[in-house]
């Protein structure tokens, strides 16, 4: 066992520093900002909405294949923020865990159990010296059979929590304070209001006037048929409604 900072390895692998910090985990949080994107998710009365930026830096890229919204099961979706390769790996693992749960226990995995499982897996990386933590943050949106709309987030440290509204990415702190002000005023939003609040939060915090092709929106409602990623025309409808309101 190395002797911490005297050997100087606490910055290289996930072992404790003399102050009791895990530097690798903190670096993993910084890595989330490498992608340069911000995501926002809000839980309404009967729906959950996740919104993220869509940046296509290269004209040669096929915009259809660039996405950060993923469907995990029929009733659970997630928005990934951070390093794209790590995100895709985690999504695959989440899909496997959800399918395995269905096989073993005979019912759809609840959102909080899936988030707990992914958080437990991330926690193992903070203890294993041979594996680094993954530089991505998962925000799960889903519909629970017994408890209704659910919003959960898990991070590289292995911490997870349920939220009324949350943000992740570069402008996380600004987005979170914007959402706090909104949540204080009103808690049970309708579907329309939830989407508009999420989009306006991103627009305000990033100071960007969004075009439909620059946004990705994923929703799940109690009325609808599972997790759905909105098309550009549908996003446009909401953007128009938002601009008319202002």
């Amino acid at each position: 066992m190395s002797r911490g900072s005297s050997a100087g390895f606490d910055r290289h692998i996930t072992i404790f520093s003399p102050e009791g910090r895990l530097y690798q985990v903190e670096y993993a949080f910084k890595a989330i900002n490498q992608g340069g994107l911000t995501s926002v998710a809000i839980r309404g009365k009967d729906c959950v909405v996740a919104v993220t930026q869509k940046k296509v830096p290269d004209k040669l890229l096929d915009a259809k294949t660039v996405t950060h919204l993923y469907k995990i099961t029929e009733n659970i979706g997630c928005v990934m923020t951070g390093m794209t390769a790590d995100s895709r790996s985690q999504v695959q693992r989440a899909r496997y865990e959800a399918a395995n749960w269905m096989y073993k226990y005979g019912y759809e995995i609840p959102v909080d159990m899936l988030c707990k499982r992914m958080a437990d897996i991330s926690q193992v990386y903070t203890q294993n010296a041979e594996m680094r933590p993954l530089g991505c943050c998962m925000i799960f949106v889903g519909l629970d059979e017994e408890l209704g709309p659910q919003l959960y987030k898990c991070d590289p440290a292995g911490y997870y929590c349920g939220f009324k509204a949350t943000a992740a990415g570069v402008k996380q702190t600004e987005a979170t304070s914007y959402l706090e002000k909104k949540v204080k005023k009103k808690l049970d939003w309708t579907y329309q209001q939830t989407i508009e609040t999420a989009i306006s939060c991103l627009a305000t915090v990033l100071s960007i006037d969004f075009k439909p092709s620059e946004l990705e929106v994923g929703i799940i409602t109690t009325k609808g048929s599972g997790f759905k990623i909105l098309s550009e025309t549908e996003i446009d409808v909401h953007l128009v409604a938002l601009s008319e309101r202002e």
Partner: protein
Amino acid sequence: MATLIVNQPPVGGFSFDHCKRNAYLLGEANKVGSSLPTARKTGTTICGIVFKDGVILGADTRATEGMVVADKNCSKIHHISSNIYCCGAGTAADTEMTTQIISSNLELHALSTGRVPRVATANRMLKQMLFRYQGHIGAALVLGGVDCNGPHLYSIYPHGSTDKLPYVTMGSGSLAAMAVFEDRYKPDMEEEDAKRLVRDAIAAGIFNDLGSGSNIDLCVITKGNLDYIRPHEEANKKGVRTGDYKYKRGTTGVLSKVVTPLNLEVVEESVLTMDTS
């Protein structure tokens, strides 16, 4: 490591290493004219029914060892969780241990999820375990309970196949019990009617099947309420002996009496203390 297939530790199961040897030994025994001992089967009548507010499980209480009754009042309705119960037919040890293992795992699952366990989950766990043992675990089960999606009833066979049905019977007395069900089952029965129907089905098994007997146990499970009625009816009460084999003094006439006292002298008395340190 985020690999697709997670490394699972090897799960238990029977080792089939000696199958070839056993087949050879059986051949040898047959050549000489004898045969290897066969497994003991136990008789039972168990059944379950879905009624308007929940499920009712019923069972007889006889445990047999070949042609001898080993236990006149054994409990065949096992607890899986507070809202799920399971009747077991077949090898008594197998049904008991299987239901206990799944009950334990289901409790861990319920604590982890913070939710009331579902009957479908118990069904999956039971069938996957029984299939893993390829039928060598002789447990035929009737699983019933009420969860967030309503009342559910499953029958589970020793090889791991399951059926989800409104009424099921298992055990050596299952044909007698099923005859009663097929005649009188109706969907959405009232509780008293359903209890009477289950009682009649088990009684049919008790009186028409040698492997089943003694009393009738019932378990009524509804949303938020459980009634474990043991015994619901003592169909076969052990009779009171009307005669007595003790004879009064004087029944046999005494012709003569000779008393010889044995005078024993105490020669030596020694006390050995036990080392209890």
